């Protein structure tokens, strides 16, 4: 009998950065902008959190702030080039991912011996009593603080999107910018803000990767999470609850590598690493349709 509790715990922990990035991306896409540079936001956030955590007298909060700022720095280029100047979102996003991977790699290598920094990423917030529930207790109630915040974002974003004026304006821009404009909404402003929010979340996701998971930085450690998050948004049908569900499924797929190692199964490690990517392809083929914002990734913002 396999003990599933450690696997569930790892799945939720692994899902956290994915969920943060995907929730942010769903807001950006609801406003009609696909951020292919999300991977770049994540790696930039990861490096910023790593650099900030390496300084004395800084706590995790400073690390996450630095991570969010780094994400925004990447996202602001997308906002200027693709929202204001209407350049192709996908080309700009791809270049931003390449740029962020290159810049963080250069900075990291330039640190030399200081790059060996490792810090404790294992601290968890344990909910009394609940965390003692067998099997699911530790997975749900003994996680890093950022995991609880990420889950709290789901109803918060839902409420903003569906129950506020801002959310209505944002969804209107993603469906029909010209109609939104007639109703007094400024599409470019809304899209810019949505992109900046999404990239800040991408940065925080990178921060979580370093501060709550790996405990250090490695070149290219985002390992496609930005692209997985974009897939997660499509699989979650651009709805917060769906995004949460899809994130957990993918977190589970990524956590399989730890389980296989721990159990000593006779499966090649390299093949297990493929699972999340293959799963994405299969899942997108099977369920990745429907409910996309009508103006997603378009250059002509109805003006």
């Amino acid at each position, binding site marked *: 009998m396999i003990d599933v509790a450690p696997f569930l715990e790892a799945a939720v922990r692994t899902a956290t950065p994915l969920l943060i990035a995907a929730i942010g991306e769903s807001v950006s896409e609801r406003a009609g902008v696909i951020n292919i540079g999300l991977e770049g936001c994540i790696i930039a956030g990861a490096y910023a959190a790593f650099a900030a955590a390496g300084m004395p007298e800084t706590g995790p909060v400073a690390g996450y702030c630095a991570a969010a700022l780094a994400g925004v720095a990447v996202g602001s280029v997308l906002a200027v080039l693709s929202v204001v100047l209407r*350049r192709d979102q996908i080309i700009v996003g791809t270049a931003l991912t*390449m*740029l962020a991977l290159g810049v963080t790699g250069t900075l990291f290598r330039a640190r030399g011996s200081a790059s060996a920094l490792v810090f404790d990423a294992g601290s968890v917030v344990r909910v009394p009593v609940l965390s003692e529930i067998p099997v699911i207790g530790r997975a749900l109630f003994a996680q890093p603080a950022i995991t609880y915040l990420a889950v709290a974002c789901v109803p918060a974003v839902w409420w903003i999107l569906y129950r506020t004026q801002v959310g209505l304006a944002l969804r209107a821009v993603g469906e029909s910018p010209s109609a939104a404009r007639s109703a007094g909404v400024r599409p470019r402003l809304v899209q810019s803000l949505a992109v900046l929010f999404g990239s800040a979340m991408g940065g925080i996701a990178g921060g979580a990767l370093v501060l709550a998971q790996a405990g250090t930085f490695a*070149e290219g450690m985002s390992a496609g999470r930005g692209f997985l998050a974009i897939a997660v948004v499509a699989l979650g049908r651009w709805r917060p609850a769906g995004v949460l569900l899809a994130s957990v499924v993918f977190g589970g797929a990524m956590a399989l590598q730890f389980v296989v190692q721990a159990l000593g199964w006779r499966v090649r490690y390299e*093949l297990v690493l493929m699972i999340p990517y293959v799963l994405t392809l299969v899942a997108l083929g099977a369920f990745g349709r429907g409910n996309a914002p009508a103006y997603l990734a378009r250059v002509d913002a109805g003006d």
Partner: protein
Amino acid sequence: MTDVAAIAEAFWRGSLGTSSALLSGTLVRAVPLIIVGVAVAIAFRGGVFNIGGEGQLLLGAVAATVVGLHVPAGLGLAGVLLALVAAATAGGIWAAIAAVLRARFGVLEVISTIMLNFVALSLVSWLVRGPMQEPTHVYPQTSALPEPLRLPLLVPGTRLHAGFLIAIATSALAWLVVSRTAAGFRLRATGESPTAASAAGGVNVAKTSAWALVVSGALAGVAGGIEITGVTFALYENLSPGYGFAAIAVAILARLHPLTVLGTGLLFAVFETGALGMQRDAGVPSVVASVLEAAAILIVIGFSGARISLQRRRSLPGAGPSTESARQ
């Protein structure tokens, strides 16, 4: 200032400064950049964003290695040709997965080709540690191809191989096909305006863009085959230092023109070998080359207006599996 001079000199020595840097370094490096650059340009022209060049190149490398290690060495050049055909087939099939996902299920090719890159990377890692590992089982790589099954050298005593001629021929041929044939017309029409292509030109838009992606993948596969038969002679991880991504910059800087890709491919090869020289002699991390490449894309896109865009295609309902037509 002396620092800057030293770094500049290291860049020069690494890229163009000596005949060995030029012939064995820069020109050899330009081969995959040019071929995958042409591959990316063709896909873009058809309105398909292939960022899977890296994975397609790796699959081509795998196929060329399998052929090179299994056909009799006596075949010589015919064996090399066979390896390159296998490489093209493998790259084309890898891209076809994304093409089918796009045509049948409306999956954005940006996502699927990236996912296929990661799968290809893991696949190579597994192959060189598992079924294809060299007989002593020490190193994570395959055995080396026998001497007769390698691409001949163009200049004896250097590493410049016949793949350079293949790169030039690819770029010229791609230009001919894109600008002078009916298939090229259908490709450009599909990329420019799918509704017009479909309504006025009777072009099967879905089929054209699917084929653009497959041909693009086949070319990237050939580039992988050339790396195996001309440069590394064995399969191992990190065979490609990101040629598939650099090629996007090569294609965009060339404004998607197959002949111009020759020039931009060479330019980026100079960047990359120069950056390696800077790392070797002046301790500057070589990843700065990818920063330059990404910056080049952003600058070109920033200044070129909306000319280089895939979104006309995506924005038209019924024009293919775009995000919005996928809603039906």
